[in-house]
């Protein structure tokens, strides 16, 4: 049967080749585009979580929806130690967050003020490494503030200048202090650069009357793909109080995940039209193949061959043809990905857009299993489904009439 199918495929080399090319072309396009999408998602996710938010955060229940000072995590040191031991967790850092007015001599701006533990902050956030002028903190009781570049410009301050910080502390108390600017960071994210000021944790606690409390434990992980398992491990380990929750990055910043889903689903709208066009082409080819062999099939049927066998031969033929096309397409698609992985893929305007989301201007796609299989497998299934239509015609053949046909 295999032999029969193989021979039939090459009965019309040009037709076969064209069909093969159409399938290979469509597979290659899907492999490349899906590869591009997946790589850009990875870049987006990594850039988004590594800059500040982390892959996971432990907070008091309700804090994320409505960040109020009084929703704190207490006795966090033991929890921090335990969380760091969980498999897959790379680092965990405590943070406290408040809001304050920052005044230089001439200007006043509101800012999000974050208290950080200097020794571990660099393991969960890239901001400590992005200090362009001055330096990051060294001790957690240091008296100093690190601010974003745009905030520094708006406040018209430079290194060493003093900032007056005025805000609300815990339980409505007044938070006020004067601190020198020790570092200015430039993260590329407009929001962070314009709105964020960081203080060493102990200094923050003192200023905002937080005593020993913090607002969140920020966790970075070895592999972002494993984040759900790690979350489960933390929940299962019963480290948390009932009113403490673990939030994944996609819960912390739901927009990113939805944007990815939106992009993927709109992508599939486009892909499905391409797959439909190719499927029409495949149906056409096999329709012709069956039609021109009407006589041959009829002879075989009258010799006693069962229609099911013939039908299977046609399907085997199509499997071979489609599989051949898909494999060629996967190879081609992988080559295109490898090429653009070296030189980077970009269309006009993308650089400006990427900057807004804190990403490099071009996408450097990588070959991945999903990119290679997602598109081609849909093409394979759709084509096979489409081929059923001509293949089942075998049952409707009338051997007596068919033999007389030229």
């Amino acid at each position, binding site marked *: 049967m295999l032999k029969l199918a193989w021979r039939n495929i090459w009965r*019309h080399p040009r*037709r076969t080749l*064209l*069909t093969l*090319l*159409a399938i290979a*072309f*469509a597979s290659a*396009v899907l492999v490349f585009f899906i590869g591009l999408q997946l790589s850009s998602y990875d870049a987006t996710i990594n850039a988004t979580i590594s800059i500040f938010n982390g892959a996971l955060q432990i907070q008091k229940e309700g804090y994320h929806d*409505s*960040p*109020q000072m009084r929703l704190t995590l207490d006795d966090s040191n033991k929890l921090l130690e335990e969380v760091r031991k969980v498999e897959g967790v790379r680092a965990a850092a405590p943070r406290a967050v408040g*809001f304050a*007015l920052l*005044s230089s001599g001439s*200007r*006043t*701006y*509101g*800012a999000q003020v974050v208290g950080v533990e200097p020794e571990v902050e660099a393991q969960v956030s890239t901001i400590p490494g992005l200090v362009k002028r001055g330096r990051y903190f060294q001790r957690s009781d240091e008296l100093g503030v690190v601010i974003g570049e745009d905030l520094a*410009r*708006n406040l018209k301050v430079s290194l060493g200048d003093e900032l007056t910080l005025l*805000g*609300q502390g815990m339980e*409505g108390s007044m938070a006020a202090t004067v601190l020198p600017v020790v570092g200015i960071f430039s993260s590329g994210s407009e929001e962070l650069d314009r*709105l964020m000021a960081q203080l060493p944790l102990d200094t923050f606690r003192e200023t905002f009357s937080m005593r020993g409390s913090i607002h969140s434990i920020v966790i970075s992980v070895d592999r972002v793909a494993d984040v759900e398992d790690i979350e489960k491990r933390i929940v299962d380990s019963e480290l948390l109080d009932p009113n403490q929750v673990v939030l994944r990055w996609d819960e912390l910043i*739901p*927009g*990113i*995940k*939805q*944007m*990815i*889903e*939106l*992009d993927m689903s709109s992508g599939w*709208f*486009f892909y499905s*039209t*391409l797959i*439909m*066009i*190719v499927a*029409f*082409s495949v*149906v*056409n*080819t096999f*329709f*012709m193949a069956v039609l*021109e062999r009407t006589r041959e099939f009829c002879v075989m049927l009258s010799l006693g061959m069962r229609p099911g066998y013939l039908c299977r031969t046609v399907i085997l033929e199509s499997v071979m043809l489609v599989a051949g096309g898909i494999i060629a397409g996967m190879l081609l698609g992988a080559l295109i990905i490898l090429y653009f992985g070296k030189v980077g893929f970009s*269309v*006009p*305007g*993308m*650089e*400006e*857009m990427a900057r*807004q989301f804190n990403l490099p201007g071009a996408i450097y796609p990588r070959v991945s299993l999903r990119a290679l299989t997602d598109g081609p497998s849909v093409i394979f299934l759709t084509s096979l489904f489409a081929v059923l239509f001509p293949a089942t015609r075998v049952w409707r053949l009338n051997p007596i009439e068919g033999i007389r046909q*030229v």
Partner: protein
Amino acid sequence: MRAVSPSLVFRLSSRNIWRNPKRSLFTLLAVAVGIWSAMALGAFTRGLNQTLVLKAINNLTGHIKVMHPDYRRDPVVQNRIEAAGAEMLSVLDSDAVKSWAARVRVPGVVMSERESQGTTLVGIDPASEVNLSFIGKGVHDGRMLEDELDGGVLLGRKMLEVLQTDVGKRVVLMSEGVDGAVADRGFRIVGAFDAELEATERNYVFVGRNVLQKMLGIGTDVSEISLRVADGRQDDVQRALRDVAKDSLVENWETLEPLTVSMRDVQSGFLHIWNVIVVIAVGFGLMNTLFMAIFERTREFGLFRAIGMRPAMIYLQVVGESVVLLVLGALLGNLLALGTIGYFAGGLDLSRFAQGLEHFGASRIVYPILRLSDVVTSNATIIVLALLSTLYPAWRASRLEPVEALSKI
């Protein structure tokens, strides 16, 4: 010998199509899907882009803005302009300008009894915002500001939640006054507004312009004048404004919202790439069909040649066949696309992705936009490129050797 007339060629072409209706149907469908996808997906992409543009314009930008040269970089009270003088008013009140508003807009802080938040304080004249920005559409709870002297404040719904306060309660607004000292004043929350983006609900609080001017101590000065122009008049108006406001910056929304513009460019760039891909796929299918059609008619073509039909006529016959297929496919594709677009004319609801859309500033509801130029380009690219793919099979057909061809079964 009588030459074969073109009308005979056309008759032969169209008859051949129906020799094998299923094959022709599939090819026709492939062409139709190609055109449908180019037009319908194009219309939705344009629609999505349009929501981005409208959102940018509604979001207190307008088509054109007049402001202090340093205001964009450093939006503080010091960087302000005088209220519109007689010369500028003559431009602003001309027919080319649909509506305009002068606003005070400064960074500030809003404090309730429990929480405080950084935001932008916007002093408006409510009447002038009506056809200009989202706040002109009114409020969700409570009442709108009555006029520029109104002592109330409008907060976004999300902002109320964050501040744990409500309509009727009081908040304190703080900002830097003209003398560099902190200026503050208590306001009663008279209304809450809804915006499509949560960020907008937190980014702005609205008060009467006059009240804010007094609080900051800036007399009748404003931060910006924003305007919406009549269709096609943007460049004229921008030029006229630059003439009368020599010391100020006059920019259009394309300059003010570069992200919107680059997003639009990226999407239309991808759309073009995609259309070419679809055309290539359709081309493969068409070429295949024609090869098969020629193959089964080898004998017939041989006969035509033997009785004296010129190769050019055979060539025309094959091309003619594909033209008929293409035109029918294009018709069907256009109908399908128009049907799809018509069906979704009331808007395609993408609420499921609301937060994702918010991330790049698009609306939840997308209205497809069909432009005549898109219809023409989609149809033209597919028909022209697909015709190109038929040239080779047609050439093969016209080159057949009569004797050899006749001897084939």
